[in-house]
């Protein structure tokens, strides 16, 4: 693997929807402990104040985004045929773009890409289209407007269409680390000149298909909820952000992923070590870890062991967003990043300057991202090495 220190990238916008609600502040509130973990029963999924989530769910805790009406953000035009996966990501993108200090110009949009992580697309859309092939009078009588949505790249391409973004448009299937895969792809696309800005993130919708899959898989620990969410980050070079008058909310440093045949602990520890090396950050500078495997049978302890192995100890501040938000598979790592940004927003000093986002999953995948508070590398005594 290359050991060169990567050029930092700036996050200049962030949008998040999660069972904590819409936006970073709602997430920050939950992380501060002002709310109970999300455990809504299936009966609440069609609450009158929200877009309903139809269907029969398994008898297990569920965590849906409360009070979400996407038309409040996206208007009514062209929304009807979009599935929940696409809607959640569109709301996150809307927020990320709206929150930028200086909006993207039309010229910027020609050079703005979209990279979205999802491992199945909307599994509800695909399954429902497929169901029609079995239950309709003729097997080909599927809904025409549902076919594009059954393909995984639908969400990323809809983001481009709705926001006129003509740059590279890619969909990453990366399991629980999909958000990290999106960041790796985005970093290369920016470095190689395929885009100036990238909206990178990941999404997972709550639906009966995936909830039953989790229920049947036996992969979650007792009491763990199945959740949903989307988080999208606007990524660009720091010099581009400065030229555009946009203030970074975080610096993206090393981001490493791997597949491990055996020895997941060791693989994740090595991944974390590499990510730190490529960030030019010593292990003892890490002040916060945002863990992802909370609630995953067999992996929760492995993840914490790996962080201990890489850093010598667990950092003082540990964020476990999945404990609050539920297991949201492809959106997990992106929501872990959002959790760091949310915590920084409310208490940046206590959180310290450097956060590690770790990922470990049942598809033998491990990943690690290093995030730094902007300006940290200018402070004396913390010069970047390498």
């Amino acid at each position, binding site marked *: 693997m290359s050991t060169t220190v990567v050029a930092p990238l700036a996050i200049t916008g962030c949008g998040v929807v999660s069972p904590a609600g819409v936006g970073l502040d709602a997430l920050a509130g939950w992380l501060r402990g002002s709310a109970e973990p999300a455990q809504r029963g299936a009966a609440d999924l069609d609450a009158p104040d929200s877009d309903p989530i139809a269907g029969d769910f398994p008898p297990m805790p569920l965590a849906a985004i409360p009070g979400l009406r996407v038309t409040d953000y996206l208007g009514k035009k062209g929304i009807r045929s979009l599935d929940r996966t696409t809607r959640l990501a569109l709301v996150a993108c809307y927020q990320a773009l709206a929150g930028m200090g200086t909006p993207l110009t039309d010229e910027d949009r020609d050079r703005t890409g979209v990279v979205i992580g999802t491992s*199945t697309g909307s599994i509800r859309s695909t399954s429902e289209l497929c169901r029609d092939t079995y239950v309709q009078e003729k097997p080909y009588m599927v809904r025409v407007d549902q076919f594009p949505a059954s393909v995984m790249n639908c969400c990323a391409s809809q983001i481009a269409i709705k926001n006129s973004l003509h740059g590279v448009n890619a969909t990453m*299937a990366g399991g629980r680390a999909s958000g990290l895969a999106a960041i790796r792809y985005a970093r290369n696309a920016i470095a190689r000149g395929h885009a100036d800005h990238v909206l990178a993130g990941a999404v997972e919708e709550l639906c009966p298909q995936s909830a039953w899959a989790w229920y049947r898989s036996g992969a979650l620990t007792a009491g763990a909820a199945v959740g949903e969410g989307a988080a999208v980050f606007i990524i660009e070079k720091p010099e581009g952000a400065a030229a555009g008058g946009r203030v970074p909310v975080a610096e993206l440093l090393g981001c490493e992923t791997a597949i491990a045949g055996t020895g997941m602990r060791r693989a994740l520890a090595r991944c974390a070590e590499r990510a730190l090396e490529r960030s030019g950050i010593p292990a003892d500078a890490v002040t916060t870890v945002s863990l992802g495997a909370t609630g995953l049978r067999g992996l929760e302890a492995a993840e914490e062991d790996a962080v201990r192995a890489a850093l010598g100890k667990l950092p003082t501040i540990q964020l476990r967003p999945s404990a609050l938000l539920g297991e949201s598979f492809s959106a997990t790592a992106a929501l872990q990043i959002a959790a760091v940004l949310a915590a920084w927003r409310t208490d940046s000093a206590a959180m310290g300057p450097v956060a590690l986002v770790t990922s470990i999953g049942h598809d033998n995948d491990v990943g690690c991202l290093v995030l730094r508070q902007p300006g940290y590398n200018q402070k004396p005594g913390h010069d970047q090495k390498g």
Partner: protein
Amino acid sequence: MTGEAGRRVAVTGLGAVSSLGTGVRSFTEAIRAGRSGIAEIQSFDTTGFPYTMAGGIRDFEPESLLARLRVAEWGRSSLLAAAAARLAVQDAGIDPDYLAAASAGSVMGTTGGEAALVDELTGTWVTEGMKNLDRAQVRKVPADRVGAAVNLELELSGEALTIATACAASNYALGYGYDMVRTGEAEFMISGGADSIARWAHAGFYRIGALAESVCRPFDADRSGTLIAEGGVALFLETLDGAVARGARIYAEVLGYGVNCDARHPVAPDPVSIADCIKTAHRNAGVSPEDIDYICAHGTGTPANDATEISAVRAVFGDRLPPISSIKSMIGHTLGAASGFGALICCMALHEGFLPPTANLVQVDPALGPGVDCVPGTSRPAAPRIVENHGFAFGGNNAITILGRAV
């Protein structure tokens, strides 16, 4: 990024599992002869479907191709990906242990991921209810397993990226793999793609009017649509210098790529945006339109795609259109693997000296305008130096790779 210093990237191994055979030799031989891999669908019950032809693989035996993966734990697309990757490594003549210890990763494209498993699980939903979904089956569904399968089969220590940008995915993968080797992020990358035939995709393509009844005739006046297909394809990438140093057979050099997004319509392609993508690919590869000796078309055989594609090519190349053909006429549309098969046959065309044909061509559609040379029938001897490989997808996702003869 033109002119930016970087390492030159060579393709030194090719792997194919397709309806036209296993391994790059038998695949290429069949393509050169203009043979068809299209047959009656066997992978699902076609009762009630008006059209029942596709490019299915009848003789895929993962056990005989794979050394490490336990076949029962993986879906068909993952197995196709891993098998193609294993074949590409064997073809590259590189020691697997050396590769496993090196800085090596994979990047694979897919449209449906484990789409055939979704068929099966939905069948369970319909007959027994979701509460009876098979535990082992659901664990095999996530599409990230397509790339993971490659790394686990070959014990690669680097990243495994699965790009799900529909039918342009393999070209995205080749571009990313090229960048990883070029920048030194990795020493070796396996780029490719895999997809399986699924009932729901067949239904969807039929319903939107994109399916042909039995014959895929790209660029023909009587073309009526595409045929879905499956396959696994892999290209082994390393530095040109490294390839020369170890005395490897070099099929081709990856010169560059372009990617963009129409951002206009979820299904209909846009010729202006595709033309922009071609120009970007040329610029990034440091070539001009007159340098291009052949275009491996996206060429799905739908009336709309082929007209749009030729119109875009015309906008870039003017009156001098390079020969342009579609191997989908023989293997059908292998979806996420399609532009990977295109890249593979481009490598072979550069290496062996031929132009791949468009089969089933009776009369080039006059509406496509003058000067459209689709290399009808069987392959044509030629000595292409630089070729262009197209991949377009639903959602207006365009990706174009440029490959050159190794010199």
